């Protein structure tokens, strides 16, 4: 066990491992690119849907079932299916990652909107606010903590799952996991896994930082969720 950790440390810290087209630096950037693009696309789809469902109160049934459906969808199966349908391209990777992230963001956005006190919403309407003013100036700020939780959760899941890019012969940190698996090289697998975990945690912390910036003018009660 100690020997394994030593080997891992050597693998992670050797200069030659970090440079070159299949070095850690390149793989890390690829992984970051897949994850960020997928999360952004998912957010661009899911945020409007979640906000609309939350604001109108219509389609709550859809939002809740969508999340269950999304969680139940086996990612490996989806990747394989899109791969067989589209051939060698990045589509299988991005479609699967977006499909993984959208339900998480929709449900959390909807949950955040649903948790807004109806009296607050009525008061805003009573003051003559238009629907978009109620949505963007009242509901959205109040729902933001839960929305951010959804984005963070989606991001962590996408980073952990982006390893599947290597399954359909692309790059990213999954390369080490799959190549190590094929070569029975446990140190390489372990190294890949550690790097994925570190990247996921770093992105989660970064988003937490963004969240704190957004809320710096808020009374501490807003953090309670």
């Amino acid at each position: 066990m100690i020997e394994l950790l030593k080997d891992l440390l050597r693998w992670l810290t050797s200069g030659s491992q970090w440079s070159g087209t299949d070095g850690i630096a390149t793989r890390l950037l690829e992984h970051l690119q897949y994850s960020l693009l997928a999360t952004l696309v998912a957010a661009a789809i899911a945020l409007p849907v979640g906000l609309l469902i939350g604001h109108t109160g219509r389609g709550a049934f859809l939002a809740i079932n969508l999340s269950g459906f999304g969680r139940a969808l086996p990612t490996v199966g989806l990747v394989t299916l899109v791969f067989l349908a589209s051939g060698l391209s990045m589509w299988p990777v991005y479609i699967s990652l977006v499909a993984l992230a959208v339900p998480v963001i929709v449900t959390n956005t909807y949950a955040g909107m649903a948790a807004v006190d109806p009296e607050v919403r009525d008061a805003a309407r009573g003051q003559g606010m238009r629907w978009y003013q109620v949505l963007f100036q009242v509901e959205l700020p109040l729902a933001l903590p839960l929305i951010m939780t959804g984005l963070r959760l989606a991001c962590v899941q996408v980073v952990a799952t982006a390893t599947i890019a290597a399954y359909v012969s692309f790059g990213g940190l999954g390369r080490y996991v799959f190549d190590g698996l094929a070569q029975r090289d446990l140190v390489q697998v372990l190294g890949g896994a550690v790097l994925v975990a570190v990247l996921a945690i770093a992105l989660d912390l970064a988003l937490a930082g963004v969240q704190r910036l957004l809320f710096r003018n808020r009374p501490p009660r807003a953090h309670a969720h």
Partner: protein
Amino acid sequence: MTVDWGWFPDHQSDLVTLTLDHLSTAVPAVLFGLLIALPLAVIAHRVRALRGLLLGLSNILFTIPSIAIFVLLLPITGLTRTTAITGLTIYTLVVLLRNTVEGLDSVPTKVREASTAMGARPLRTLLTVELPLAFPVIMAGVRVATVMAISLVSVASYIGYGGLGQLFTDGFQRNYPTPVVAGVLLSLLLALVADAVLVTIQWLCTPWLRRRA
């Protein structure tokens, strides 16, 4: 991409075997997860100092890719179903632990104090007051964990215990989409049925919530 629907009835017995295989990995994983999460959640709920540590630790485990978890377990548990079950158990922990802690947190302090005032010891309060009241929130976690475990079993096909995931590998290697479609559909169906069963169990176990409604 064409799906050969005639393939389904021809492979009926295989599909049944794989589905049962799938269940015999997912179900124990959730049960073990619950068995580990419950005591840890009670500790996290009562000892504030350990709370952040336990929740943080389970969050970190959640960030490790599932394939990597299975592979990392190989030297310890070998190419067995135990590896698949252990890996999935680790994954269910994050949801189960967080929901159980939240459930216990949601029990009003006054209710707990009333139980203590009536002479109940902490263990009795936990078993007869806190856990029943936290049950709906805990069950929400069990439902998520179960659906997640069922969808993740297929990842274990890399070590040969992927249940319906075996169909993905098969279709991928032969460049033949039909088994992949079968695997995805059956996996979804299984998750749906399992969730319905859990909802029924929850409904049966919480008569007090029904009467109020």
